[in-house]
């Protein structure tokens, strides 16, 4: 597992039923591209997050396949519909097999 991986998400605490909300996510990860070389000229092996998946109450919102061309600390901003009260589940999949998860509950206002 890469060191110091911390997911951060910004989701409104409440929304009207059927409302479209903007979600911002950021996860701290060095996203080593596999193109860089160290001071001895050896390639630094690739180590990135390769997939990011968001669901709401088990229903799919967005599924992103990530390549090395995504910057350090991958940031994503997108919109989702909130049909009822429930929970957004965010999952990041690391190259080394680690899975980082976080979730945010949304109430109906």
């Amino acid at each position, binding site marked *: 597992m890469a060191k110091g991986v911390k997911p951060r998400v910004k989701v409104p605490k409440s929304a009207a039923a059927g409302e*479209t*909300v*903007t979600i911002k996510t950021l996860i701290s990860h060095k996203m080593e*591209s596999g*193109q*860089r*070389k160290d001071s001895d000229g050896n390639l630094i092996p690739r180590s990135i997050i390769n997939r990011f998946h968001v*669901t*709401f109450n088990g*229903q*799919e*919102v*967005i*599924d*992103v*396949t*990530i*390549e*090395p*061309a*995504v*910057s*350090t600390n*991958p*940031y*994503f*901003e*997108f*919109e*989702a*519909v909130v*049909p009822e009260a429930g929970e957004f589940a965010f999952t990041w999949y690391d190259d080394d097999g680690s899975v980082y998860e976080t979730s945010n509950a949304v109430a109906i206002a």
Partner: protein
Amino acid sequence: MDLTRRDALALGASTFALTLLPFRASAAADDAIATFTGGAATSDGGVSLTTPEIAENGNTVPVSVDAPGAVAIAIFAAGNPTPEVVTAKFGPLAGSQALSTRIRLAGTQDVVAVAQMADGSFAKASNTVKVTIGGCGG
């Protein structure tokens, strides 16, 4: 081996051409786009791609893409060592078919967004981004 003036010039010119080549070659990007579309033709319009005109730092270039009615969007950087950047599939609860993120660009090049529409057609948008400092290390 005697290096004549002519040899030295030829060598210099070919080295120069080689260093330029990676940023100009778009065959890899075309291949990557064809893999995403399955070889189908792409039309213009229907996709809006927002990129900065000049990026000072190629390590984090903010891009956003919006394609109403799309089921999937892929972003390609034509001049990167690997042209694929991200592929996003939208589920039933996606509020809009839009995504913003930050990407790495190796140098001045075209950024291409391809959207797969619900009817199976593909639309494309492309922007040129000038990069002052490339983002590929090395």
